[in-house]
Each structure stands twice: as structure tokens, then as C-alpha cells.
């Protein structure tokens, strides 16, 4: 575990937050939750039928890999949680440290076992750390800066990046998507105010721990009837 110097105050307002894994999706402000045994696609169907998100054709959702699906669904829920329309110049910043290593391995293994003659394009396009973020931007029609970010200081440094982007106004909102271990934490931020204080979370450079911490907070606050086996799988 890394020890980091905490910065707990940012000129950011946390407008919406969503937690998603393959079994459940939680919205932090509204307290809503969705569950499905059918994975992320099943959770999406549950959410779509609840009419809390705009009707949209999610053709991309069906062909996307797991991280892209998490990114799209988490982004939709973070906006729904905020009650905000999608702002055209929203920035999408990814983090979490996992990059696209599983997608890289899947692509190259497929290429290698098939004779090293030609790769499979469908697998190749998922091999960039920025791909899930771009899929979310495409899904929600967001035209702000999109990039994957990693530093020594975990969530604090990502928040600082968002603060910097928003203060310089190349973006009106920032959507932070942390993806790790099959789970996603989506934060929708705007300038001004103070962001949620994550100082009680065990380690802010550890996305799965932050996820678990936020999930426990959600349970404490809303005590919704979902499986007690929550947290990143």
C-alpha cells in the first residue's frame, strides 16, 4: 500500500455518483438501486425500464467490452443521479490503474493462437485505456476532453485534474470514471463547492477499496434490499 499525502478540499461540487458492478448499480444521491443476475446488460434493462434515463439506442452497448459497458452505464447513472442533462463540453477522465490489460491480453492471445497472421479488429479497438471513456462520450454525446490518467496520488490527483480542467473552462462538467476489478465508480463534478470528503476511505489510491467504502455508505444511508455480498466481485 502506498502512503499518500491527502488533499481533501477541492473547488468541486459532486453532483452525481454511481457505483456499478456486474450485479448491481447504486445511485448515491437518489438512493436508487438496480440488480440483475444477467450482468451489466441486465442491469441496463432494469434501469431503462425505470425511465430514469433518457430513451436512447444503445447499439454500442451491445458490442462493447465489459469496461466500456461499465463506463456507459455508470455515466448514464451519474447524470441521472445529478438530475442533470448531458452537458456538451463534459470532460471524461478515466483512472483506476487497471488500464486495458485484460483487453490487451484477450486481443493478443486470440491473434497468437490463430497463427499470428491477422488480428481481430473488434478486439483490437478495446485495447486502449481511453476506449471505455470514448465509448461513454459517444454514448452520451459528450465533446469535452477525454483521457486516461494515472499518478502516484490516486483519486486526489484525478480530482485535481478535474479541478484544473473546470477552472480553465475547457469543460463545464467532469465525469470521473474509475474502473477496476469489474467495478466502476462514476463521479459527476462541477466547479465550486467542496467535493465529497473521501478522507474516511481506507486508501484513496485504491479504487476497489473506495468502491467498497462508498457501497457501505450507501447501505448505511438507504438500507436498500440488495444482496449482502456487495462490493467488487
Amino acid at each position, binding site marked *: 500500500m502506498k502512503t499518500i499525502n491527502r488533499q481533501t478540499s477541492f473547488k468541486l461540487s459532486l453532483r452525481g455518483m454511481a457505483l456499478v458492478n456486474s450485479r448491481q448499480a447504486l445511485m448515491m444521491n437518489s438512493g436508487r438501486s438496480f440488480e440483475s443476475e444477467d450482468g451489466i446488460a441486465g442491469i441496463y434493462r432494469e434501469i431503462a425500464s425505470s425511465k430514469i434515463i433518457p430513451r436512447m439506442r444503445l447499439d*454500442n452497448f451491445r458490442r462493447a467490452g465489459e469496461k466500456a459497458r461499465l463506463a456507459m452505464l455508470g455515466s448514464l447513472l451519474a447524470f441521472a443521479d445529478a438530475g442533470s442533462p448531458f452537458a456538451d463540453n463534459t470532460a*471524461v477522465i478515466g483512472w483506476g*490503474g*487497471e*488500464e*486495458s*490489460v485484460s483487453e*490487451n*491480453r484477450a*486481443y*493478443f*492471445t486470440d*491473434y*497468437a493462437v490463430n*497463427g*499470428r*497472421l*491477422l*488480428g*481481430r*479488429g473488434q478486439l*483490437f*479497438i478495446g*485495447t*486502449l*485505456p*481511453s*476506449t471505455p*471513456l*470514448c*465509448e461513454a*462520450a*459517444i454514448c*452520451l*454525446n*459528450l*465533446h*469535452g*476532453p*477525454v*483521457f*486516461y*490518467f*494515472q*499518478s*502516484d496520488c490516486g483519486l486526489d*490527483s484525478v480530482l*485535481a*485534474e478535474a479541478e*484544473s*480542467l473546470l*477552472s*480553465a473552462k*475547457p469543460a463545464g462538467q467532469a465525469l470521473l470514471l474509475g474502473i477496476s476489478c469489474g467495478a466502476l465508480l462514476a463521479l459527476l463534478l462541477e466547479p465550486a463547492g467542496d467535493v465529497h470528503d473521501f478522507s474516511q476511505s481506507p486508501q484513496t489510491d485504491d479504487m476497489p477499496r473506495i468502491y467498497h467504502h462508498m457501497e457501505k455508505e450507501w447501505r448505511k444511508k438507504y438500507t436498500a434490499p440488495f444482496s449482502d455480498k456487495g462490493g467488487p466481485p
Partner: protein
Amino acid sequence: MKNSPIIVFADLITAYGHGLDRCWNGFMARRRPFSAITRFPSAGFEGAVAATVPDFMYDSTSSLAEHLLRKIAATTIELPTDAELFLATTVGEINLLEQEILLHKTEKCAPTCSSLLDKAKAIFGKKRASLISAACASGNMALARAAAKIQNGGIEYAIVAGCDIVSEFVFSGFASLGAIDLNGARPYDRDRAGLTLGEAAAVIALASEDAARRDGLPRLARLGGWGISCDAVHITAPMSDGLQLAAAIRHAMAAAGISPPEIGGVIGHGTGTVYNDSMEINALNSVFNEDAKPLFSTKGGVGHTLGAAGVVQAAVAVRAIQEMLLPPQTGLREPMPGTERMVSGQTQSRLIAPKILSLNAGFGGINAVLLIEDCA
């Protein structure tokens, strides 16, 4: 742009060799240092070429990107250890993952960009380091984020390093998308048919105006403005009308307080693919209308160096401003329609003014544009 950072150092390693002189002279001589791929079995990609760094061997056990970074770090300007390192890469140490799979290793690789970041931090001897990965716009994105941090007073110095290698992983991937011209890229050519993969390590060091003056650092150029956008249209294909790239160009100029007539020239993304180059020209036409600017792509010479491309372009922009010209377009035979007044395969172009736009456009529709100008 108020408090815009100064470029105090620029260096690069490309298929032309180590150093800006070698690269610039290669461009001016219209030399294409593309060669047949010997680094990995390429039977499936008959006759394919790439722009690999000369005398750079593919060692099956070590990280090529780490080697390149070590080589360029050895000649990089000394800056205080609190200078922040920004690393731009798309796949980092991907050859280690290739070896894991091809040699059936049981020990699994770490994520390839983050592992390179850890090594880069040690190689450059910096306390703080950040990874920026934004597909083929990573280089410009990292420069823009570093510049923003200097501009808002967060740091005084930044080292922006871009690094990606020619790998079987990426080569086979681009080939699967039909994006590679087996005969070598010809950016902005009427008969362009795809990109040539390249590799590079490039470094740009930035300093605040105050720090550069106080420490007597060379004032090579100024990173005057930047603009970033996302097409949000398709995961691989660019927006055909270039609307969002044009928006990023306008934003970069506005941030620098510069109007379109003041732009001296453009270093385009210019991959040599049909769709990228067409989109770029549409974007440039929508911004500059009839006021055609001299245009040049580095990728006809050094190939598409992926996450390093923006940093390579920034280094070349520094030299172009010093020389007040853009080189002839490497590989160009006949300009694509609409670019006749922009590009030339035969002659260099005088810069109209010492202000250059450098464009990056990556998968997912990520656009990042820099405005690099003299320090006057």
C-alpha cells in the same frame, strides 16, 4: 495566453536517429527511413514496412520503451527534481505482454502503461509523475495538461515524454483495421492508402515564464494555447466534417489570443489514412477558408509514433519556428484535392508567421491541438 509556459528543451529519437538535427535534416532531404519489419514475424503482412529506430534491437525479455526512455533521458536537460513528469503513451511496455503470451509465461504482466510510468519516474529522477493516455492524441494531451498545470501555478517545470514502439501487437491491430499502407504512408497524397507505424521517444521540457527567466533556461518557443475536444461519433473513424477538430483549433487560437490570419503554418496529424487526412483538411478549411496555410505531417518520415506523435510534432515545431519554414512533405507525390496550396512534395514552405498549430486526432475521436509560437 497569460502565463503560458516556455519550451526550454526539445529532443527526440526517431527512425532518423537521435536528435532534432537528424530528424529535421531527414525531412528536408525528403528521406523516408522506412524499412522491412524484422523485429517480429511479418509473413501475414507481406512486404510491410515500419519506421523503426536504427540499431535498436528487439530484446525478448526487456522493455523496448524503457530502453528508448533511458536513451533520451541521458541527454535531457537537468531540471529540479520537483519538476513533474508527464508520460504520454498508448501501450507502454506492450512487448512484455507479447512475450508473456507468446512464451506462455505463468507470471502475468502489470498494466503496460503504468509499469512504464513507474520506470520513467525513476529514469528521469522525478518525484511526481503522471500518465496521460488519450490514444494517438496522448502527446498533445500530455503537453496541454502539463502546460495548464504550469499556467495555473501548480508547478514551475514539467518534462513531457512521449514514447511508443513498433510492436507486433499494434502492427497486427492496425493491419486488422486495414489502416496500414504496405508501401509506406503518403500523408495528404491523392493516392494515400494508410499509415506507416513508427516508434519514438521524444521530450519537451516546459517552464513557467518566471522560472525560465530566473534560471536562465533557453527560451526555444512558447506553448501559447491549446484546445481539446472529442468527436463522440465513432470509436475508430473520425467525424468526416472535422467539426470537433475545428473547434479544438479555434479554442487553441482563442486561448493564445491569436486570429486565423496570424497562424504561420500547421503540423497536421496527417497519418496518411484516407479518412484522417480528409477530416483534417475539412477542419482546416472550415477554420481558414481561402487563407490556406502551409501544412506538413511528420508521419511521412518518422511514421505514426502513436502516443509520442504530439511530442515529436512539438519538437519539430520548435525547429520550424527557428528556421521559419516547414519541410517538403515526405512521401508526397500528388496533393489530395483541396490541398494544392497547402502541401508540396518538392519544396519547403516559408512560415507566414512564427506561430504553428500542431494537431493530434486519436481513436475515439479525441482531438488535441497546440499553438506553438516564438517567445517574442
